[in-house]
């Protein structure tokens, strides 16, 4: 297990969350929970005890036990994850929403401690809840079930919501199963981008930007190849002069376990140059907060698709 404790006091027994050092500038941390693995009522109650009253209300407003559990685990994951990087207890973290509604930590001022500029973003499916963390740069993540079936036809969905280039890319895929997978991958990348921007789904409609893959060696734009190659760099282009385009976005997409795609979008670290430095360094952990953490970064739980160092 790659847990780093950098001269920080080990947490006392009341908060047995293993501390972790902050992500470096080119690093993203990715923590996830598999909800089906957490069934213990007393553990779930413990998580409930971490939430603010507003968060508890939101949890109970969800329809049905399964959705409530998911909402509870999502908040517990955010709180416990952020607590690992700080000297703050998970219960005492405060959150606020930015101008556009994106959740952020509201660090409490304390003379003895300079809070880190930690950014986080969560995403969930019915079978997985994930929290991405980055230091000093915005982050957006999205997870989707690989085999998620859409009710509408892929082409129809793409035409309605994606950019022209992306529609063309998908239309050129003859195999329907592969087309479905590429659709899902594109969706997760676009979601991750919008969430990194932090302006909400509505402010950055999917058809106002294109996700493309640039051939790293030739610097040309390839249309017919698919994502599954590390020789390609994922780039985003705005279709008009929208102010939301971030020219220094960095993307990564990978398979997580057998069931999911996960996409991450952060800002590039402009200080270091060179190809290798453009790839994202990922550290990933599967966690049951307060019970166990399993570092999965160098295992075959994570299968890089593109953008990972």
């Amino acid at each position, binding site marked *: 297990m790659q847990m780093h404790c950098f001269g920080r006091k080990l947490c006392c027994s009341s908060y047995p969350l293993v501390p972790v050092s902050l992500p470096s500038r080119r690093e993203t941390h990715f923590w996830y929970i598999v909800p089906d693995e957490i069934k213990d009522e007393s553990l779930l109650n413990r998580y409930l005890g971490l939430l603010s009253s507003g968060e508890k209300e939101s949890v109970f407003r969800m*329809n*049905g036990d399964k*959705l409530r559990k*998911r909402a509870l685990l999502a908040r517990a994951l955010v709180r416990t994850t952020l607590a690992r990087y700080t000297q703050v207890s998970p219960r005492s973290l405060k959150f606020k929403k930015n101008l556009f509604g994106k959740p952020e930590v509201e660090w409490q001022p304390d003379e003895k401690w300079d809070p880190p500029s930690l950014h986080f973003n969560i995403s969930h499916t019915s079978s997985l809840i994930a929290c991405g963390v980055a230091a000093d740069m915005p982050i957006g993540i999205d997870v989707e079930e690989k085999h998620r079936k859409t009710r*509408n036809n892929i082409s129809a969905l793409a035409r309605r919501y994606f950019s022209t280039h992306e529609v063309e890319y998908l239309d050129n895929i003859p195999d329907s199963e592969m087309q479905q997978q590429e659709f899902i991958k594109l*969706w997760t990348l676009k979601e991750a981008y919008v969430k990194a921007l932090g302006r909400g*789904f*509505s402010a950055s409609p999917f058809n106002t930007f294109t996700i493309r893959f640039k051939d790293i060696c030739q610097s040309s734009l390839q249309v017919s190849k698919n994502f599954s190659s590390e020789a390609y760099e994922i780039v985003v282009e705005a279709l008009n002069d929208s102010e939301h385009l971030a020219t220094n976005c960095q993307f990564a997409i990978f398979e997580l376990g057998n069931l999911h795609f996960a996409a991450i979008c952060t800002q590039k670290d402009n200080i270091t140059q060179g190809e290798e430095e453009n790839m994202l360094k990922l550290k990933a952990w599967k966690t049951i907060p307060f019970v166990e953490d399993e570092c999965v970064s160098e295992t075959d739980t994570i299968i890089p698709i593109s953008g990972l160092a």
Partner: protein
Amino acid sequence: MTSIVGATISVPSSRSLCFNQATPRISGLKPVSVSIQKKSFPSLKFRRSFRVSCSAKPETVDKVCEIVRKQLALPADSAVTGESKFVSLGADSLDTVEIVMGLEEAFGISVEEESAQTIATVQDAADLIEKLVEKK
């Protein structure tokens, strides 16, 4: 679809509490048919769920509920009403766009991106649909 629109409890059997309280004589009946419910309870419950006059017809709300249930693969006994928020039903962004497409198809309308983003509840969707259908 049950005739009790807007109730927060969906009651699979028709022997609801109100039923028994209001007409104790009928409490001995076996599960009644829909028509009897309508006759004995002239939409007292119906009215409670209606908002101000410009909200959508119950049939529209019902149709939206049906499309939402299908998209989210909700169990038959889960409560979906006009007040249900998509987020609380577990809809993510892909579900939401699929629901919008389903509504467009079912009602023969076209929903602009900006309007789609204002839809938070089933009722919002139904109201928007009727506005768009009227415009046609």
